[in-house]
């Protein structure tokens, strides 16, 4: 009796596990809880992969059920007692062995055909976007431990937050300046490694607007775990506005001080929706009027220039000066996250990050001089105006 119970609990275990698979994959779990999931593709590349994955998964599940059932059946059926006579001494059977060699080969052939198709479908960047435009080229540069995004056709650079328009294919060309990284936005495409000596390519077309998390997938040193980023998928209009805003960063002088003082425009259509993306509708000097007159901001501006920040960071996303080894900070005031894309961009976090980067993200390459809390607050206030 006890033996019987044990055996049946063995039998139920895989079934339980299988149930868990089924529940998860049929989407009984709320997909919005898993923004980094590979199971809810939001782009064409990821959809092709997902289709193939599901084919393989169901086949694998089927094989799993059949083989485990066969095993458990044998275990259940042929249990013997110590004094049972010797069972029939069967050494093998050529027929059944041929059958169970051929059947797996056929199952694999079923998997192999769509696999090869998808390999070739995903290998090449489509010549035209679904929206008819040419793909948007973005150059990705991996750094320990943050991501740089350059738009060579638009002449702008940003970091840790990739803005793309919905429905337009994005053509990524990737390199790293140090060790290997791997660029991965699970909802849009598979991952692709990034090398120092060789450009790798990846593409995707986002089908929904919103904020989508991405991560570095190749182990790249001490802060590999904190090399995240967000993809902001905007409507084409929002995206145009964002580009225009970034392009006016050139109105700022090399230290980030505004050159002329045109009428500041606060963007009335800004939408603080998903991921707090604030996007200007029209070109504007990205400084709010109230902030302009805040003495704290002016003070912060001074610290940005004198405390060494300017040595590594630019606030100008147009033609970022050479030697800028830290992330471009244009628009830092409204970015979703900071510190390599994982820390929510609140005043408190920004303060902590500037004051004690090693406590926030130990091993980070950012060097900061000693600053008082008041000095850091001023710096935060200044950065907050960078929209």
């Amino acid at each position, binding site marked *: 009796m006890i*033996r019987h119970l044990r055996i049946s609990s063995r039998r139920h275990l895989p079934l339980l596990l299988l149930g*868990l*698979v089924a529940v998860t994959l049929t989407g009984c779990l709320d997909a919005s809880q*898993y*923004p*980094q999931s*590979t*199971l809810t593709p939001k782009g064409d590349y*990821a959809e092709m992969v997902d289709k*193939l*994955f599901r084919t*393989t*998964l169901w086949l*694998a599940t089927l094989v799993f059920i059949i*083989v485990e059932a066969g*095993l458990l059946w044998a275990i259940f059926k*042929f*249990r*013997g*007692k110590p004094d*049972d*006579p010797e*069972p*029939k001494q*069967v*050494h*093998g059977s050529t027929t*059944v*062995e041929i059958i*169970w*060699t051929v059947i797996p080969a056929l199952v*694999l052939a079923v*998997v192999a055909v769509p*696999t*090869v198709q998808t*390999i*070739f479908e995903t*290998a090449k960047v489509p010549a035209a976007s679904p929206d008819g435009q040419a793909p948007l080229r973005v150059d990705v540069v991996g750094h320990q431990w943050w991501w740089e995004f350059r738009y060579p056709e638009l002449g702008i650079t940003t970091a840790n937050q990739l803005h793309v328009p919905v429905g337009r294919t994005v053509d990524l060309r990737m390199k790293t300046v140090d*060790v*290997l990284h*791997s660029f991965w936005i699970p909802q849009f495409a*598979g*991952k*692709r*490694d990034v*090398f*120092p*000596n*060789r450009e790798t390519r990846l593409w995707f077309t986002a089908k929904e607007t919103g904020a989508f*998390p991405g*991560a*570095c*997938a190749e*182990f790249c*040193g*001490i*802060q*590999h*775990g904190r090399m995240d980023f967000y993809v902001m998928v905007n409507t084409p209009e929002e995206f145009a506005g964002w580009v225009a805003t970034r392009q006016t960063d050139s109105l700022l002088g090399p230290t980030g001080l505004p050159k002329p003082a045109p009428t500041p425009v606060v963007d009335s259509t800004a939408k603080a929706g998903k991921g707090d993306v604030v996007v200007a509708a029209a070109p504007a000097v990205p400084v709010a009027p109230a902030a302009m007159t805040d003495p704290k901001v002016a003070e912060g501006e001074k610290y940005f220039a004198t405390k060494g920040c300017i040595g590594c960071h630019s606030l100008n996303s147009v033609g970022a000066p050479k030697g800028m080894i830290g992330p471009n900070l244009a628009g830092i005031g409204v970015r979703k996250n900071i510190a390599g894309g994982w820390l929510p961009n609140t005043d408190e976090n920004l303060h902590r990050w500037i004051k004690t980067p090693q406590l926030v993200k130990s*091993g980070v390459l950012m060097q900061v001089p000693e600053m008082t809390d008041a000095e850091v607050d001023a710096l935060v206030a200044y950065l907050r105006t960078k929209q």
Partner: protein
Amino acid sequence: MATSVLEQTHVAKRGTLASWLTTVDHKKIGILYGASAFLFFLIGGIEALIIRTQLARPDATLVSPEFYNQLFTMHGTTMIFLGVMPLSAMFFNFFIPLLIGARDVAFPRLNAMSLWVFILGGLFMNFSFLMNAAPNGGWFGYAPLSSRQYSPGLNMDFWVIGLQILGIASLAAGVNFFTTILNMRARGMTLMRMPMFVWTTLITQILVLLSFPVITVALILLMVDRTFGASFFSVGGGGDPMLWQHLFWVFGHPEVYILILPAFGIISEILPVFSRKPLFGYSAMVFSSAFIAFLGFGVWSHHMFSTGMGPLADTFFSLATMLIAIPTGVKIFNWIGTLWGGSLQFKTPMLFALGFIAMFITGGLSGVMHSVAPADLQQTDTYFVVAHFHYVLFGGSIFALTAGAYYWWPKMFGTMLNETIGKWHFWLMLAGFNLTFFPMHFAGLLGMPRRIYTYPAGLGFELFNMMATVGAFLLAFSILVFMYNMWVTVRRNVPAPADPWGGATLEWTIPSPPQEWNFTVEPVVAERDPVWAMKRAAGVRTLPEPTLDSGKGIHLPGPSWWPLVVAVGILVFFIGFMVKHSYAFPFGPITIVGFLLTAVGIFKWAYEAPDANAPKH
């Protein structure tokens, strides 16, 4: 008679410390391999528990990112090179001569050297923790992260040098068992009459002999890069990091089969005995093992789909990888075929063997899913992969090695592990294992990369990580149960019969534990399951207890200090490369001392009469 068996078997009577340090008896070497590998396995397990505790909750700060990287690097390196491989070596050492009816291995002193090189290499690697400089670049040591520029400390020196030392041990063992199996089989034991474990061991050694030189070359290049500033793998000097990946995986993929093939062999020994039926499809099992090993050399780039090799390369490596599923499937079906129609006896070794099949099916199927290159681009470097290879290496290798431990314990130590505790061990391990690793499939599919020291809340990883951590502690508890079982068994020390399970192979015809010379009369074999044939001919289920013998007239090589001296010399030689850069001349004095020690050791070893210290029987 019984008393004299007891005297023989008494664990405490196994000799002085010096006799263990100088032993060339393959059985003692096997026990030392097992004991030290188990110790390293425990260290690797503790590392895993710290990792799991850190990951139990999001944004945890139990360990620093630096220490976390050391933990996962050492966990992987330890489990592969200091846990699973040497635990298999324990069985090679103890049982290959017994299974082929030989009195010894081909090169007993080389065997001893292999053991000591392994132990010293393992201690050296773990010593890095005491220096606060444990390796931190991942077990695959990808360049350029592993270069001096990006890993400036001693950490990766410990890794590069430790692996080179361990590689010497593996190669020495490979040569030894390859030769032993091909040259020292009992009269009548043709290749196609060898027990399956002997076959998989032979194939494993071929893999070792072909793949370890590749990693050795890669490690030497990396050491030259790190120590002397060459740039084989660094872009600045014209090198290419991809070279490292190719070299590493040309070794790394066959290594997977080095870890799993011995497990296949152990299972193929156990299932027939507890089904009381011969192995189903013996020749198919032999050829599928060989085919798996052969294909294992043609699929290395499936670890590199995400590097963007291009569609043709992806297609080739996808399809080659899928092919491996065919011989693997044949094996699983043949194991089930062995059970079919049998009279199954659910002793602890059998439970672990069945657990192995059930778990290995899961790991094998997720492996096929990885061979689908586009899907692999979503899965690689995530917890889905972590789940997959733990199903293969823990659900596979460790379950099989545990099955082997229960099965062969009586032969090794002359006592029986407790069956009740053994069954507790099995069920706890099965539950703990699945609770630990099954949820990782979900974490990976939901986008959790591997090798991250923490993850933010809000991505939905929390539940699966908490489950895995609870499972890990359950798994650890099952290992404690196993240790309790060993302790109880040693304490009670009840003598085991020579053939407790009704075995089919030659080791069961000699006393437990075997006398130093194994076989008083060298066996002659005419069948694939010679002991079953003998029993059938005699009409009995177990053979009568073998008589003890004085072994008069049997000559065995005597103990020797020189293998140990050579091992120490090799260690010192390599340590010299670590401290080299603090000396003015290209080879530091420590390297020279090590070289001299090794040279003297080899010289004395070569000129020592083989039986100078041999016991007179």
